[in-house]
């Protein structure tokens, strides 16, 4: 299948009728679109035309009533239409699918109806031929291998995880394409019949006294197993839903990577500012508490000087006191002829000598000197009580000042980061914050649900084993009334075993074929000469091997994509269908080297490739240079308003 012309009328943001002509030559076309401009809607126009479905985030179906172009405030459902012209096997087709007003069918709940027309080589096909032709050209079940979001290629990694619910879904899709459902459905139908037969076996056993208790046990075990099976199914659905939600959130965050890192930096800086503000406040409070003693520190040098002076005065006054006391003793002895200390009489010549010794100066008054001494001691004591730690106050002042400077610097940086974020579309920062929060919350719920699922699966296994054990026991006992039911159970057990073996055998053959095809593609795509081949596991997960057969561990995300593309290519080759590859966000998670690999890979897989990147997703000149002559066309999605996008030729101006 090769797409030629896409005509869109009032679909999503594509207002009016817009015509898009695909390049006629084999190769890669680029359609650039900023976030919200309508890349996914463009992919959906083709999905709508081919399959009549419109998918939103995470592969959820969008109701057709909300697809028609309308103003934000207009609540009314609007009609829309897509016409796709393509060629296949030398025939030309024009497929038109419309959602249109239906005035002739007032009973219609919406007042709208869907019309589909397929014109083949100029002839309009009738409904039966039309549906048969469409199912043959490109069945919806394999759409994921033609119209896909590259961000979701990571889901192929799930094929390598035993027991992964997403991997199981994907495996089912792969096997549907490859024709396995004929066998698996037969096996599952037989399993259902077997469960019914065991219930009948239990009923029959309950009628016989000899087996009544065992029949009761089998009935209870069957009911419990059935309930456990329903629990597992519900949890599988829930896990898939949560995983889809988490993938979508990651994808959204990835497409806002630039703003995400800015928000991250802004949030980190905001936290830092909060910490610094707290520190600054603490330092300021500590300083304020200490600053009350500043006056003491101001006086400290004066007090120190004064203490020295008072100490010197004290020494001098002590000496004066000693002199005054000595003078008074001498005077007393000379006058009285008796020593005032030992009370002995003094000889006349000694008394004369003491009298002569006196130099005639007036001795100081002892009491007055003692009073002076007391005053000086009191001053000294007062001065000594003055304690001031000026160094501590100064250090606290330094710390408070530094904390203010640090805070001011951080606040300036925060303002700059905020200013950069303010240039983003309104609400970006809030949205990213909300997305990050939602992702964290979803991942927690997902982990918890997976744990519950694992426990419930184990529970189901135990209950199934109990059912088989009771059923087998009953069969061995065998009563007259339950013989037919026992034989039926045995027949179905044998048939089920046969179909299980058949499914396994068919799967083995398919896996061998897919492994060979995927390895051939991978070898053509891989730039790493040491990577020799791919090995497939029972879930169709592919592992890269060295020539020695050793597994390549921890392969890069780029190689994950290449491996996924190899699998898609192999499935396309093993499928009778062939068609274009149209991918949204083709390079979102890849580094430049792997973007280059993908650019190399896609034209190898399909003749017609359309990539829908956003502007920052890949460097345009590099991409065009890398594609060389495989680059065959380029368009961009121009915003007219929030609800109006126009497809225009060329890159963004």
């Amino acid at each position: 299948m090769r797409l030629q012309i896409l005509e869109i009328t009032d679909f999503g943001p594509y207002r009016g009728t817009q015509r898009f002509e695909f390049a006629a030559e084999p190769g890669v076309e680029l359609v650039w679109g900023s976030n919200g401009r309508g890349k996914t809607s463009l992919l959906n126009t083709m999905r709508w035309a081919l399959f009549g479905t419109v998918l939103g985030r995470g592969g959820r179906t969008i109701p057709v009533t909300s697809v028609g172009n309308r103003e934000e405030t207009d609540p009314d459902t609007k009609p829309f239409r897509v016409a796709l012209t393509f060629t296949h096997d030398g025939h030309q087709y024009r497929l038109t699918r419309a959602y249109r007003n239906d005035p002739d069918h007032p009973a219609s709940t919406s007042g709208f109806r869907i019309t589909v027309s397929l014109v083949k080589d100029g002839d309009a096909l009738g409904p039966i031929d039309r549906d048969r032709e469409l199912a043959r050209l490109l069945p919806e079940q394999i759409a994921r291998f033609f119209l896909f979001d590259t961000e979701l290629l990571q889901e192929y990694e799930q094929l390598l995880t035993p027991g992964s619910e997403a991997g199981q879904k994907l495996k089912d899709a792969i096997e549907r394409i490859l024709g396995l459902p004929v066998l698996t459905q037969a096996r599952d139908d037989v399993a259902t019949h077997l469960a019914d037969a065991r219930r009948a076996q239990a009923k029959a056993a309950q009628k016989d006294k000899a087996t009544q208790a065992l029949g009761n046990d089998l009935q209870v075990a069957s009911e419990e197993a059935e309930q456990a099976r329903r629990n597992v199914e519900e949890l599988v659905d829930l896990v898939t839903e949560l995983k889809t939600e988490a993938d979508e959130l990651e994808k959204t965050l990835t497409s806002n990577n630039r703003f995400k890192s800015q928000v991250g930096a802004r949030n980190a800086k905001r936290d830092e500012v909060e910490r610094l503000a707290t520190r600054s406040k603490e330092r300021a409070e500590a300083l304020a508490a200490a600053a009350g003693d500043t006056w003491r520190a101001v006086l400290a040098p004066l007090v120190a000087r004064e203490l020295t002076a008072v100490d010197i005065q004290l020494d001098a006054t002590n000496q004066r006191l000693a002199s005054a006391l000595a003078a008074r003793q001498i005077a007393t002895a000379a006058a009285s002829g008796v020593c005032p200390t030992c009370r002995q009489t003094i000889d006349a010549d000694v008394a004369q000598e003491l009298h002569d010794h006196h130099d005639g100066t007036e001795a100081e008054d002892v009491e007055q000197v003692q009073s002076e001494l007391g005053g000086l001691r009191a001053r000294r004591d007062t001065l000594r009580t003055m304690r001031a730690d000026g160094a501590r106050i100064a250090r606290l002042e330094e710390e408070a000042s530094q904390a203010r400077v640090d805070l001011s610097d951080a606040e300036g940086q925060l303002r700059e980061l905020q200013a950069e974020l303010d240039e983003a579309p309104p609400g970006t920062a809030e949205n990213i914050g909300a997305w990050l929060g939602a992702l964290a919350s979803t991942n927690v719920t997902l982990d918890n649900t997976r744990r519950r699922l694992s426990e419930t699966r184990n529970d189901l296994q135990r209950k199934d084993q109990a059912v088989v054990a009771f059923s087998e026991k009953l069969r061995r006992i065998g009563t007259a009334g339950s013989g037919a039911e026992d034989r039926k159970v045995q027949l179905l057990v044998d048939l089920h075993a046969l179909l299980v073996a058949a499914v396994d055998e068919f799967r083995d053959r398919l896996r061998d074929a897919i492994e060979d095809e995927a390895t051939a593609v991978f070898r053509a795509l891989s730039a790493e000469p040491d990577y020799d081949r791919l090995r497939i596991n029972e879930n169709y997960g592919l592992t890269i091997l060295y020539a020695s057969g050793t597994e390549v561990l921890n392969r890069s995300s780029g190689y994950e994509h290449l491996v996924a593309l190899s699998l898609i290519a192999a499935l396309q080759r093993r499928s009778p269908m062939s068609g274009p590859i149209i991918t949204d966000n083709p390079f979102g998670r890849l580094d430049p080297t792997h973007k280059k690999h993908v650019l190399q890979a896609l034209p190898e897989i399909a003749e017609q490739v359309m990539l829908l990147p956003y502007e920052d997703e890949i460097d345009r000149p590099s991409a065009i240079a890398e594609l060389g002559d495989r680059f065959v066309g380029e368009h961009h999605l121009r915003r007219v308003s929030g609800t109006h996008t126009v497809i225009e030729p060329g890159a963004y101006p």
Partner: protein
Amino acid sequence: MSQPPSTARTGGRVNIAFTEAAEEAARRLVNRFPFAALVDTARVGAAFALREGMSLSRPEDFGPANGSNFNVGSVDPGGDLRDLLVALHPQIQEDPYRVLETLMSQGVLAIDERVASGEILSLRDLMGVEIST
């Protein structure tokens, strides 16, 4: 040694106040430095005046001390400032709190002037201490 001031020891003086100009200066200092209240600048002003050897006598152009009234118990809760004044200047005859009232106004005006001239920019400058950081 230190005792709460009593009216007996303060010569009956209960309140002291800045002059109008000094109060304006004191308010600027409260805004400029991490002092909790105006009364902190009163203590710092008096201490600074003492350290700088400013006259204990009230100059003729001192003007009326009609700024906010501080209870002497607020300015000098333990009497430390008064005791220190007396220890440094035992010769003073005047009521110590009247002397301190003079010194605190003179001191804050002097500090405010040096702040304005850039000579004092921090508590460290004010304290005149050298700190190794």
